[in-house]
């Protein structure tokens, strides 16, 4: 409790660090904040071409929205994923990158990884706002769902933050973490139904039956992937325009709370030794 109070007391510092990241990032670029859209747009074009046009992954039209645009369907899952992967990548390196500061000034260390979450969330919110506008133009009725959407975004941010806290500590002790993470994220991305619909997995799972005689099925294993649930909820809200499945929401909430709790615990345990270990 004391620790949480200390973290809360440094919210102003957190705000300043977030604005340092945000302001510093696109400084001296001509397009400024628009660069934040460049990466997801490029990915959208590539994946739409390869998976929508060539492989013909054909996600069901939004129900009840009636939307049937692969690119938009893709972005509803891709934007949350890029946010998640950015937070993990930058967050895991945040302590090592600020080693000089940690060794010279005392402050609540946790603000460093959290500021990464904040600045990434800022960019993500911008991207999501653009997506909401695009969805509305395409005929979706997203606007009433924005409050729920914000709640789910906060849940994903909390989930990502918790994982990033653990990784940032791990990276201090094992610098391999950062490199290992890029591989893990790549595998994780393809194991999450972002560029293909989950229905294909269910079909493949039904065809394969139980795996190697165990009671596990492929789609059962997919349920263990937290990002699967987050992507499902985002699609239900933004692409289908309906209440997300209650169970899915609860699973997301559970992952967010669990990851945050473990993340803070791990961080608190190790923060004292940071200055020496770095």
């Amino acid at each position, binding site marked *: 409790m004391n620790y949480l109070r200390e973290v809360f007391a440094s919210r102003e510092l957190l705000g300043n660090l977030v604005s340092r990241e945000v302001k*510093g990032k696109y400084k001296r670029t001509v397009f400024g904040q628009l660069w934040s859209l460049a990466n997801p747009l490029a990915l959208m074009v590539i994946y739409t071409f390869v998976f929508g046009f060539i492989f013909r992954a054909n996600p069901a039209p939004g129900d009840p929205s009636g939307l049937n645009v692969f690119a938009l369907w893709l972005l509803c899952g891709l934007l949350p994923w890029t946010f998640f992967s950015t937070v993990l990548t930058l967050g895991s390196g945040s302590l090592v990158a600020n080693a000089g500061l940690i060794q010279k000034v*005392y402050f609540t260390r946790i603000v460093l990884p959290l500021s990464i979450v904040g600045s990434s969330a800022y960019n993500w919110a911008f991207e999501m706002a653009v997506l909401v506008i695009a969805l509305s133009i395409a005929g979706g009725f997203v606007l009433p769902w924005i409050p729920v959407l914000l709640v789910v975004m906060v849940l994903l941010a909390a989930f990502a933050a918790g994982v990033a806290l653990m990784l940032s500590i791990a990276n201090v002790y094992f610098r391999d973490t950062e490199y290992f993470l890029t591989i893990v994220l790549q595998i994780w991305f393809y194991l999450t139904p972002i560029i293909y619909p989950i229905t294909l997995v269910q079909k493949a799972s039904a065809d394969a039956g139980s795996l190697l005689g165990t009671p596990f099925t492929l789609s059962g294993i997919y349920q263990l992937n937290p990002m699967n649930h987050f992507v499902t909820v985002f699609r239900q809200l933004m692409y289908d325009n309906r209440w997300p499945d209650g169970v899915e929401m609860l699973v997301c909430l559970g992952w967010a709370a669990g990851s945050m709790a473990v993340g803070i615990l791990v961080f608190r345990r190790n923060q004292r030794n940071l200055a020496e270990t770095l």
Partner: protein
Amino acid sequence: MTTTAVRVDHVGKSFRLYRERNQTIKSAVMRRRTSVHEDFWALRDVSFDVPQGSTFGLIGSNGSGKSTLLKCLANIYYPNEGSIKHFGRIAAMLEVGSGFHTELSGRENIFLNGSILGMSKKEITRKYDEIVDFSGVEKFIDQPVKNYSSGMYVRLGFAIAINVDPDILIVDEVLAVGDSEFQEKCFQKFRDFKAVGKTVILVTHSMGTVKELCDGAAWLNQGVLMSVGASAPTIAEYERSIGHDSGS
């Protein structure tokens, strides 16, 4: 009897000297260890009190543990033995300008750095003019700090740190940079601090500074406290031990 600002009580701090250090997962898994090390005590059984309202100098040769002690005082390191108690708000200036973002302007960096050092936005706004005035860079305050000269950089960093308005200020050898005019300004600031009953602890190799500013001093040698007391006799003892006057 004056009250104590900082009580250093039997403090010991050890570091691990690694003969072998493989911080990779491979070595952790394959050999079930990441390192072979022995303990090295940078500080051992150091105890002294710093009275409130005094200016206190830490002296000693290179590698004597001064900076380690300072970092323990500043809550950056945690001692393995003993304890350090401080009575009042503490601010440490171990390196000025750490945490500056070079692409941001001086103005933005004042707010950023101030909050890293623990000031609230309101406090910084109130002291903003004073900070800019003290730093003497008002003409360039809206320029990105990467364009600052090293002197300007240090002066701005110092101006922020000194305006944190702590009860106890901890200063590492940061005054070596900056011209003599600025140094004199800093010394004046230390005297002002003292006049209002605040405590300053500083590390320096310049015996002249200690003689001029400090009431008390502690001499460390290889992690052991050799003597502590009024500054003049402590300095004399230190200088005798190294056999020559290290000059002022």
